[in-house]
Structures are given as C-alpha cells and as structure tokens.
C-alpha cells in the first residue's frame, strides 16, 4: 500500500482545481477518491505521477471538467423544469386575469381593478423574472446576460408604469420614463449593433428592433405632449373664467333687487355663497398661485391644471375643512328650502369618487351652484 505525502495531496488538489473543478465539495470528493485509488493500487515504490495521470484519465471522456458540468446540470435540471412550468402557468394566469379585468373595466363592473392589478403584478413579478432566469441559463457570455437583464428590467418598469397610470398611483410617469429610456437608449442600440453583425441573427434583430420601436412609438403617441397639456389647461381656464364672468354679472344684476338679510333664505344663501367663494379661492390658490384669475389672463402664467380633486383635498387639510363646511351648508340649505311645491332649485354638489374627478370640475360645479343661489333669491 502506497502512502501519500502532504505535497502529493496538495499536488492532486491543485491539479483538480486547475482542470476546472470549482465546486469545493466536488474537489474534496475527487481528491479523496483519487487518494484511495492511489493508496490501494500503487505499489510502495511505484511512480506516483504516472499512476496519477493514468488514473485521472479514467474519470472523463475529454476533460475533467465534465464531472462538474454534469453535477451542475443534474442539480439544476429539476429546478429548470419546475421554473419553466411556473413560467407557463403564471403567463396563462396573468393573461386570463388581465383579460377579465379589461372586460370588466369596459362593462364598468366591479372587480376590474383587482383583475388588472393581479394580472400585471403576476406578469411583472413572476413571469418576466422567470423568463429572465431561464433565458440567461442558455446564454454563455456576460454581455448577453446583461442585455437580457436590462431588457427584462425595462419590460417590468413598462408594465408597472402602465398599471400605475391606470390605477392613478403616484410614480407612474417616472416608471414609464425609466422604461422607455432603458429600452430606447440602452437596450435597443446594444441589441441592434450586436445582433446585426452576426449574419445568423441579422433578420431577427431587424424585425425585433422594428417591433420595439413601434411599441414604444405607440405608447408615446398616447402620451399628451407638454404643448398639448398647455392648450388643454388654457381651455379649461378660459372656460372657467367665462362662467365666472357670467356669475359676476349676475351678481351685479341681483344687487338692484337685493332683499334684506332678515329673510332667512337670503342670509342662508349668502352663507353658502361665501363658502363657495372660499372653496374656489382655495382651489385657485393651489392651481395658479392666486386667489382669483384675471379675465385677461395670459397663457404664459400658471393656469388651472389637471389636479385630482380628491388628491388635492387630502393634501391640504384646510381645503378639506372648507370642502366639508361647504357640503354641510348645502345640505342644510337644501333641507330648509328645496322642498316639493316650492319654486326653489336644489343645490346639486355631487363630487364623484372617481379618481378622474378634477379640481376644475369642482370649480365649474360651484359656479353653477352660485348661479342657482342668486336665482333662488330672485324667485322668492
């Protein structure tokens, strides 16, 4: 029986490592195995090196590294199929959920948001990451893997960006911008340049690039341009100014037949009117920085924007209390005067809970209400 020296053991271990075995467990197993063979089969005065190399040769067909490759592939084999299965299932589930959500949304039925959120969530957090992991397993060089990672990240940002936009969650624009910048400025150029050089992938690269540009282009056509926003805001502002002008002239007229405050409806009407003015001022202040708008406003200055009304009152507690006070006074007014048989027009101030409900919608409704307030006094 041959006795191995420490130097020889180190030599074997080094040789195993040099030949591409990187898993430590496997290194140790092979080392022990080879040592056993040498100790059992080599005679005391035998040639260690020659025996070692001929033994090592029996371990593989071409390279020693085959053992490590086989080990890794066996260990990931099971996972691989499981991941593929989950990817397929999650893809199907998310498509089904999204379809359900979109159909419900068009029918204006409850459950639409749940379907869309879950559908996009599954595709962003299960399907796309798994697709990425499976894809990089097939790719050998780091550049391809990085490119796939970048593409996946951009795709996730894009799906989430659209989801956030639909759900009116904050950060939607940021996500979409990140996605589009990643896609158009980083992913696409690298993908295109590396793909077009290879004759095998040339056609595919061109087709895919055209598809990516078309998809991004379509998304961008749906986005309102800054100029478009400005025009829309100018329209909203001039609409409001026109209505408010009408109200002011009605107010002037009403002074000619003003009734004393001792009449209840006059006093109560004034109370509601004042609260209306306060609410308008609060909205205008936050939208334009001024409490009133000059009828000859110029489009250069701040105009009435597209703020969500519910966002606005949750951001400003003062506005919220003004809003509550106004609602209460309207309810009070309606219950006192707008009874059947009397010729008093009830004040309608429904603020929909819809997230699309904007501050300028509220401004317009308030002005209409104020007109009715003035007319109700005249009718009295």
């Amino acid at each position, binding site marked *: 029986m041959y006795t191995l020296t*420490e130097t020889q*053991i*180190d030599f074997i*271990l080094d040789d195993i490592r040099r030949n591409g075995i990187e*898993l430590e*467990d*496997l290194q*140790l*197993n*092979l*080392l*022990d*195995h080879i*040592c*056993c*063979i040498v100790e059992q089969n080599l005679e005391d005065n035998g040639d260690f090196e020659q025996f070692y190399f001929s033994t090592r040769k*029996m*371990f*593989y*067909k071409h390279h020693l590294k*085959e*053992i490590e490759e*086989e*080990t890794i*592939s*066996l*260990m990931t*084999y*099971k996972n691989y199929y499981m991941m593929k299965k989950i990817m397929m299932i999650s893809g199907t589930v998310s498509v089904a959920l999204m379809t359900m959500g979109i159909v419900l949304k068009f029918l204006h039925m409850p459950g639409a948001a749940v379907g869309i959120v879950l559908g996009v969530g599954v595709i962003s957090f299960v399907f796309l990451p798994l697709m990425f992991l499976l894809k990089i397993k097939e790719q050998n060089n780091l550049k391809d893997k990085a490119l796939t990672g970048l593409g996946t990240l951009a795709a996730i940002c894009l799906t989430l960006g659209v989801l956030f936009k639909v759900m009116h969650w904050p950060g939607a624009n940021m996500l979409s911008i990140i996605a589009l910048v990643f896609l158009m400025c980083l992913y696409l150029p690298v993908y295109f340049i590396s793909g077009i050089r290879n004759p095998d992938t040339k056609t595919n690269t061109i087709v895919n690039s055209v598809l990516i540009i078309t998809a991004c282009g379509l998304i961008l056509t749906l986005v309102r341009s800054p100029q478009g926003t400005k025009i829309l805001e100018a329209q909203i502002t001039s609409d409001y100014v026109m209505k408010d002008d009408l109200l002011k002239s009605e107010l002037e007229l009403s002074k000619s037949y003003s009734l004393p405050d001792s009449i209840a409806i006059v006093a109560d009407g004034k109370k509601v009117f004042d609260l209306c003015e306060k609410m308008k001022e609060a909205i205008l202040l936050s939208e334009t920085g001024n409490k009133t708008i000059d009828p000859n406003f110029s489009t250069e200055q701040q105009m009435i924007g597209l703020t969500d009304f519910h966002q606005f009152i949750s951001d400003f507690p003062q506005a919220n209390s003004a809003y509550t006070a106004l609602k209460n006074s309207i309810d009070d007014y309606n219950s006192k005067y707008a009874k059947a048989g009397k010729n008093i027009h009830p004040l309608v101030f429904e603020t929909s809970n819809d997230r699309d409900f904007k501050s300028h919608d509220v401004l317009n409704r308030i002005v209409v209400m104020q007109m009715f307030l003035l007319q109700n006094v005249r009718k009295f």
Partner: protein
Amino acid sequence: MNYSSELIKGTLKTIILKLLKDNSRMYGYEITQKVKDLTAGKIQLTEGALYPTLHALEADGILTTETEYIGKRVRKYYSLSSEGNKVSDEKVSEFADFINTMKFLLDIKTDIA
C-alpha cells in the same frame, strides 16, 4: 462482461440508494468498490457518473452528509435521510417491477434450476 453505460445510468440512483440503505453510511470510493465486489466486477461505476448523482441527491434532500478528516484530506460520508429511506424502497420495488415487465416483454426464460 461489462454493461453499457446507458444501462448503468438508468439504475445508478437505485444502486446508490440500496447500498446506503444496507450500509448506513459510505463514501464515494467505498461505493464504487462495493459495487465492483458485489457484482464480481461486472458493474463498474464511473466517477463521472457517481459524483454528479451523489451531489444531486444531496441537493434534493435525499442524502445527508458528514465529513471526516483523513490526515490532510476530507472524506465525505453519505447516508439516507428519512425521505431517502422511502425513496430507496420505492426505487428498488419500482425496479423489481421493471425487471418482471422486461422479462415478459423480451420473452426471457429464467433458469429456475
């Protein structure tokens, strides 16, 4: 006569699990020697097939390991986990069934004497 590697490949797991069932704990070299002894050299496990399978079985939780220092080197002993015990039985009975089916399929006459 040595069996073809395809035949061995399909039965390697079963062989390992059965050996570990009978011998509580073994290391890689020991397994190859045991198989060689028991089959009078007819089945010789290759290292290139044995170790990947051992590592995969360990990763699946079918085998547990303990290490011992033998002088400067480390020896890794494999034994069945509780799940491995079950799997071992299943594999052996599955294979027994397979043999019967193959006998019938290939019309092999066994020598009863």
